[in-house]
């Protein structure tokens, strides 16, 4: 390689974000040549420097966490060090994450290169309460260690000095290496002998790598090294036979692949060094996120706080939603009046337009403000990072019940829409956990149920809309957890796999991001209003209008006949035939329940009239019972379709419908009967 007129070459290696580029700039003073590594598009930077009385060329290697050939960067670093043989390698380490960074150091030591540790970001480490005994670290690793603060250009002169001495051969490297335990070391030794005895291999590789390094890489199942060895020595070379024997022998001892054993030993070696040379303050560093988490995910406070956030969300939704709702309501009523005034004949067309189309779609569309506000709240909770905590809090409860905690994560998504939530169960590796999560997911109250709650709470619980809606969401969560437990105990028995969760840091949401999120979901509701809800409303109108000549929406209409046929099933719950018709059409989309009542009660888009007329059909007790039934009974058509797709079976889709209808009936019966006992009406 071009050495830029300097006699010596020094490579900079290190983890991504360890401050390697800053150290490179400090060493070279910004004089650098930027190009690409041969054959790849990974950026290569080099520049001249001088220290300890010698000139040297500094080459900035790509950032890597290890030297295993998993990525292009790792191969570039490995090949450069092995083939170009730099006179020294400076391993730039982020002192505040020293334990992670030292893993790469173990592999650089294994390569047998003259290594210098540049212990960067010492100020950050100190700020986090991390104290490093530099001399002891240097002694334990057997290489020079230079503490630095790259960003403030501290330690650069010292590093240059050490580099100068190292390239002149004035620094002794003790070559400390990881010991992999007696059994593995015996096999490494056998492989080393086989490699050294193979003439082709010796000629091809031993100028670049040590036999020990090659032996370890072969045992580690490094595909690239294995391929190179096969190409050089042939597929039936003794070294490959020895490799096969060694792997089998080690597997019989450890019961797992040797790569795991090797990586485990490296981390063990690093942990030993850290235990000796690094002291972490007992309290440890606490970021802002940590401090917030200590309250929000607290074992005792976590769930009550989550419940308060939920309650607030519904309070805000209904309190602020009612103003724009009145405006939309007036607009839709004005439109319906315009049609009634201007379309004089035929009568059926006027009825179709005002009752079916405008009344049907309008009675649902009027709840758009609430839908948008609840999505705004959900977006805010997500964008700040709180929703992940909500999953974590619920996860803890699920885990206590012997369920896989990860199951709750797709369930939280069910608050938005059950369809993507069912799809999100793909994250669960265990088929049983996945099936349980799919089956209970529809019990989480999706946004489509909100118009139903909004209509009924406004009509019967106007003073406590938010609280009543909150109770329904809570009911959904409790029943989802209970059903998951039941399924785990009966249909899907078995243990759960170990599971750890990474919580993202809290962040300030941006107005644009939050509104875009809200609109993405809100627009889905609008699309649904123009398609499924419109079609459903027209069908309900037809069934309420026919047979020709009957009173619109009367018991004598087709809708009335269907409702009366199934009425005995819901009589014990305090519902009449109109509730049956609404629930039947609600299968196509839960919002259609609202428009169906609009059609059956002949109020069209007049929300105030609909609220009043609902009092002819429901009491406060049966209204709450009906909302609970709506929450729990059958997933909507789109969710059923996705359950079939995800489980690959109509059987499970049918089961989801069957058990949820039965559960809805039982819960509604319980609420109604207990309510009656307590004097409810």
């Amino acid at each position, binding site marked *: 390689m071009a050495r830029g007129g300097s006699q010596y070459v020094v490579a900079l290696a290190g983890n991504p974000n360890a401050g390697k580029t800053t150290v490179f700039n400090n060493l070279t003073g910004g004089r650098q040549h930027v190009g690409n590594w041969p054959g790849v598009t990974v950026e290569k930077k080099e520049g001249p420097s001088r220290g300890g009385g010698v000139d040297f060329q500094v080459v900035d290697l790509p950032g890597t966490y290890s030297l295993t050939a998993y990525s292009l960067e790792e191969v570039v670093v490995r090949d450069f060090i092995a083939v170009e043989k730099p006179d020294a390698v400076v391993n730039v380490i982020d002192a505040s994450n020293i*334990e*992670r960074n030292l893993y790469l150091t173990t592999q650089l030591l294994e390569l047998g290169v003259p290594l210098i540790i540049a212990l960067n970001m010492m100020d950050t480490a100190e700020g986090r309460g991390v104290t490093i005994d530099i001399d002891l670290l240097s002694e334990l690793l057997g290489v020079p260690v230079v503490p630095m603060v790259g960003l403030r250009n501290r330690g650069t002169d010292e590093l240059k000095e050490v580099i100068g001495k190292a390239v002149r051969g004035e620094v002794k490297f003790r070559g400390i290496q990881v010991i992999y335990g007696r059994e593995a070391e015996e096999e490494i030794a056998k492989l080393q002998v086989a490699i050294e005895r193979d003439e082709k291999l010796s000629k091809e590789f031993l100028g670049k790598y040590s036999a020990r390094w090659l032996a370890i890489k072969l045992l580690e199942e490094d595909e690239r090294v294995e391929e190179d060895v096969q190409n050089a020595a042939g597929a039936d070379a003794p070294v490959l036979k020895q490799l096969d024997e060694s792997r089998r022998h080690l597997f019989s001892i450890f019961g797992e692949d040797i790569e*795991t054993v090797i990586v485990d030993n490296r981390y063990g070696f690093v942990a030993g060094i850290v235990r000796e040379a690094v002291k972490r303050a007992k309290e440890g560093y606490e970021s802002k996120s940590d401090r917030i988490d200590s309250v929000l995910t607290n074992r005792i406070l976590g769930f009550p706080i989550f419940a308060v956030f939920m309650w607030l969300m519904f309070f805000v939704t209904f309190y602020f939603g009612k103003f724009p709702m009145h405006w939309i309501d007036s607009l839709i009523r004005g439109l319906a009046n315009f049609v009634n005034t201007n379309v004089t004949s035929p009568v059926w067309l006027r009825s179709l337009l005002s009752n079916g189309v405008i009344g049907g779609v309008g009675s649902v569309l009027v709840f758009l403000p609430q839908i948008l506000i609840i999505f705004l709240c959900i977006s805010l909770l997500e964008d700040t990072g709180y929703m992940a905590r909500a999953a974590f809090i619920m996860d803890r409860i699920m885990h206590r019940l012997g369920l896989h905690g990860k199951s709750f994560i797709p369930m939280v*998504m069910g*608050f938005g829409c059950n369809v993507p939530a069912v*799809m999100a169960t793909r994250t669960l590796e265990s088929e049983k956990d996945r099936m349980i999560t799919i089956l209970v997911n529809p019990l989480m109250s999706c946004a489509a149920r909100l118009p139903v709650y909004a209509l009924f709470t406004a009509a019967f619980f106007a003073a406590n809309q938010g609280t009543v809606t909150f109770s329904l969401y809570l009911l959904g969560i409790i029943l989802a957890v209970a059903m998951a437990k039941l399924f785990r105990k009966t249909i899907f028995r078995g243990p759960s796999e170990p599971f*750890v*969760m990474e*919580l*993202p840091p809290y962040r300030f949401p941006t107005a644009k991001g939050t509104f875009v999120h809200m609109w993405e979901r809100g627009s889905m509701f609008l699309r649904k209003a123009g398609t499924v809800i419109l079609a459903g409303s027209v069908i309900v109108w037809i069934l309420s209008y026919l047979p020709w000549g009957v009173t619109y929406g009367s018991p004598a209409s087709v809708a009335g006949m269907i409702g009366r046929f199934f009425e005995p099933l819901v009589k014990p719950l305090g519902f009449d035939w109109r509730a049956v018709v609404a629930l039947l059409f609600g299968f196509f989309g839960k919002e259609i329940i609202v428009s169906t009542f609009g059609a059956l009660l002949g109020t069209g888009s007049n929300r105030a009239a609909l609220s009043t007329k609902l009092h002819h059909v429901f009491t406060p007790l049966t209204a709450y019972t009906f909302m609970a039934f709506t929450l729990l009974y059958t997933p909507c058509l789109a969710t059923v379709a996705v359950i079939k797709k995800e489980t690959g079976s109509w059987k499970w889709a049918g089961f989801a419908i069957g058990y949820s209808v039965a559960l809805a009936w039982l819960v509604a019966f319980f609420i109604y009967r207990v309510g009656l006992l307590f004097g409810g009406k």
Partner: protein
Amino acid sequence: MFDEILQEIEKADGPLTVKDLAARLDIEESALEKMLEFLEKKGKLSVYRPGECDQCGVVSCKTCVFGVGCSIAKRGGDC
């Protein structure tokens, strides 16, 4: 190291965050993340990272409740 990690997860009373686990084992959090990554690759455990669509299996960032925080969503892309 790996045995200690797996045992600690097994005996945990409830789910664990990486931070909790790091504190229990007195391992640096960032080092533990790399170890968990390896164990996950070997199928010995699973790590949930909210916001990483390829991890969470959500079909679209638009429908992902965690999506806005992940790198894909930040770039304005879809999963």
